[in-house]
């Protein structure tokens, strides 16, 4: 049953990439130096300065304590009907204190059917992971969670 779930998820991600070949590891605007981007610069570049509202419609799944900072699993799920009039246009995943805070941009259309994306990102240390989501009406919503990247120590 676990395996089925996994393939279901895999299927969705594959569908997302097949329908929208617009997944880009973005670093297009306001780059301070090569491959460096602060969290605020990244947010401004994505939103163009528009207000971002924290929303419980986004289900951001990341571990509280990372098992391995080099491959931290992130799943973003947005409660959206994904119709022509009301859909999720883009999912951006940001890591607040990475050298380059902007981890990935995923662009969707109503044809995706479901606003969901799952990947693994690298975290340089303990920090917040944010899902910044653009809706079809131009609004931006977000959800964040702190992820601890620790050398460990106790038992």
């Amino acid at each position: 049953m676990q395996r089925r779930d996994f393939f279901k998820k895999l299927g969705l991600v594959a569908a997302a990439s097949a329908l929208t070949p617009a997944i880009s590891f973005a670093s297009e605007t306001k780059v301070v130096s090569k491959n460096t981007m602060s969290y605020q610069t990244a947010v401004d570049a994505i939103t163009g300065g528009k207000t971002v509202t924290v929303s419980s419609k986004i289900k951001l799944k990341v571990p509280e304590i990372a098992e391995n900072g080099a491959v931290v699993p992130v799943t973003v799920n947005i409660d959206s009907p994904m119709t022509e009039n009301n859909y999720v246009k883009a999912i951006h995943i940001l890591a607040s204190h990475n050298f380059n805070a902007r981890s990935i941009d995923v662009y969707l259309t109503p044809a995706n059917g479901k606003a969901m994306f799952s990947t693994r990102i690298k975290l340089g240390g303990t920090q917040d992971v944010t899902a910044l989501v653009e809706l079809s009406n131009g609004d931006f919503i977000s959800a964040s969670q702190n992820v601890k990247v620790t050398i460990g120590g106790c038992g």
Partner: protein
Amino acid sequence: MDISRRDFMHIAAVFGIGAAATGCVSPKTPAQISINDIYNFKATGNFTLLHMCDIHAHIKPLYWREPSTLISAPNLVGTPGFLCGDAFAKHYGLEPSSLDAYFDTHVDFEELAKKFGKMGGIAHIKTYLERVRTERGNENVLFLDSGDTWQGTGVALKTRGEAIVKAQNYLGVDVMVGHWEFTYGKERVKELIEMLDAKFVTQNVIGNDPFADEYEELIFEPYTIEEKGGAKIGIIGQSFPFTSTANPKEFTEGWSFGLRLDTLQEYVNELRDEHKVDCVVVLSHDGFSVDQEVARQVHGIDFILSGHTHDPSPQPITIDGTVIVIAGSHGKFIGRLDIDAKDGKVIDYEYKLVPIASNIIPADPAGVKLVNELYAPFDKEFGEVLGQTKNILYKRDTFFSTFDQLINDAIMDEMKCDMSFTPGYRWGTTVLAGDNILMDNVYEMCGITYPNVYTFDLKGKQIATLLEDIADNVFNANPLYQQGGDMSRLGGVTYSIAVANKAGERISKLMIGGKLIDLDKTYVVSSWGGNLQNAGSNLQENKIRAVYDVTRDYIKREKIVDVSNEGNVTLVDYDCGCPVKGSRSC
């Protein structure tokens, strides 16, 4: 809001109505305490769950002193899981100098140890279990083990867990989960599960090696359904969520841990909706404070039988309808939980944390025989008298304990390092003042499968960052970010700490060798039981040696050890080690 019978029972427990359930024994001497004071219980309902956790392979009786310092973030101070000493006694209404006060707190420990003697041991545990099985009928009793069972003594280490599996089979464990179990390595874990009569269930360990058959699959059965007393009981396993970060990754390569509360919720729903169970139990190694958070986030669990943080909790706590119990450590206690459940719900329950007072509960002869057989091949080595201690040697406390200091002294003496790290585990042993220190005691303190002491270089800045990182694992205000251990113990170092400060800003006046730390300087550091060596450079390979050998040789050289309980840490924002709720003092 409707108050159900269950709610009423909880309220009653809070106000001390139905005192029989609280299990307080008056301050009598062993001669005056009848065994019935310990056995006394208001039998309830149609089945009984017996519970143990964190016995850490202590199949023989031992002394175990509870902490005299148990500091947490201010929001958690004085809540169950962060209670010790007088604050604990007050919270649970223990009478001073009673058997319960001796088992549950450090207060007057040495004096009471003379009065009441040792604790635990499988032969004594067995006598109690059989008594309950006879009283309730064997077919109405389940014995559940929250893990940290296979590791913690020499006999466990030398037999790679097998001696303890034999002990569990003798006791009649029905279901278990794990944590330190995994430090024998994946293959050995599977072998031991084959030898084990109990079921090993765990919903939060998933394959994460994309080239393995078990990728994204459950490694263990997530739950089991048992029928007792006409009730269907669903038991979901939750092993230690942070095994892969708290212990070396190589033991569990390819297995991913984590809390996995979303799948936990799915299994709760599956048990209720598809299997129509009468009672949902989570057998857990999350830790007492984490499980309180689990109860807030996951709905529909009737009981969490917790473990990992070694808290004795004489009364259950109830959060959003979920009752949480935890049964101390080192075999000192068995939790007895009588449940009345039918038609898909729990109607009533009674709980008692039963102290296994080895001088009062007689030993089962078959258990004594089994222990002797298991120890026989190692008697000569374990029984060697290494020296004597002037003061009590104990483990626990948030920052410092005497047996850890002795280990740090041994490492500093042999490795000629600037500072040493000893891990803040919560398992170990207690040796009373004036007693001999046996090799067995040294294994009880550091018998692990990765015992090497490594000596290497760390920059001052790395040391400072590392300590802040460890402090945040221990003192984070959110239990989900804690790993459930204590601060690493440091040799050659003193520091001040403000626990309530922000992460990264807690530690000040960090001195190494009596001088303020120089962030740019390179220090020679020795450490064991963690993975600090991976962060360091210039590893001195010729010095690598097992910590139990280093400690043994030092005690033999010293003959009489004299470790004071003064400590090396100044706590800035609390007045005492056992603060009461809503306060920074006692």
